[in-house]
């Protein structure tokens, strides 16, 4: 941080504008989305493992922990979670394919394929999640 943020009197924002804006393109957005989704999923691991660890209290404790997750708000969160996982997984496989099969000149095309695959997961998962999210309206 200390070395990189020189010359920008306004600090972080000027640095971000100078370093990010001139080179915003598909690749940058893919990189940023991969990073943001990765951090989000890493953070999610902790509460997820905590829910699972409640199994140490036996059936009653475990079911009491899981029961609230059937609520529509949690179903909406799970929907976002599944699509986030799908994006991070597909884009991660794209990165691996580019690394191992020398596909850097095809990376943008591959990114559109990644978004297509995510769109497919979004539609397929909505079949599952949307009725549960909208359950209170029925």
């Amino acid at each position, binding site marked *: 941080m200390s070395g990189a943020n020189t010359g920008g009197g306004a600090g972080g924002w000027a640095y971000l504008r100078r370093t990010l804006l001139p080179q915003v393109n598909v690749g940058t957005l893919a990189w940023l989305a991969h990073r943001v989704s990765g951090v989000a999923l890493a953070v999610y*691991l902790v509460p997820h493992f905590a829910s699972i660890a409640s199994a140490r209290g036996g059936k009653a404790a475990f079911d009491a922990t899981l029961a609230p*997750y059937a609520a529509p708000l949690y179903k909406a969160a799970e929907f976002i979670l599944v699509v986030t996982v799908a994006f991070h*997984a597909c884009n991660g*496989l794209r990165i691996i394919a580019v690394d191992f099969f020398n596909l850097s000149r095809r990376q943008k095309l591959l990114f559109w394929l990644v978004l297509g695959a995510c769109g497919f997961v979004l539609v397929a998962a909505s079949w599952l999640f949307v009725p549960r999210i909208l359950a209170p309206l029925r």
Partner: protein
Amino acid sequence: MAGWLLQRVTGIFLAYALAVHLWAVHVVEADRLNWDTITARLRSDAWWGISAWSVYYGLFIPAVVIHAGIGLWSIVLDYSPPAALRRALGWALGLGCAALIVYGYFGLRALLGAP
């Protein structure tokens, strides 16, 4: 280099493992995700007394935690922190990941009905 390769190996495994996990939890066990359903699944499909699901989750837990740890570490390195901060963050991440793997195994053991 080792981290780069490990990130790719765990990543490929996680792409498979998460597809199975999310399918099992959100499709097969949708609306009945509870102790009875999950313990029945985890304790089934035994080969010579070892459940296939215990092997699967036994690999899944360290793979996902190591993958997250390497990912977060590469973000730390991208910001080129001073040596002392870098060392402190390295220890925090390493110990945090080790603790999370142990924590994950505690939950898995309970669901498997291990003594």
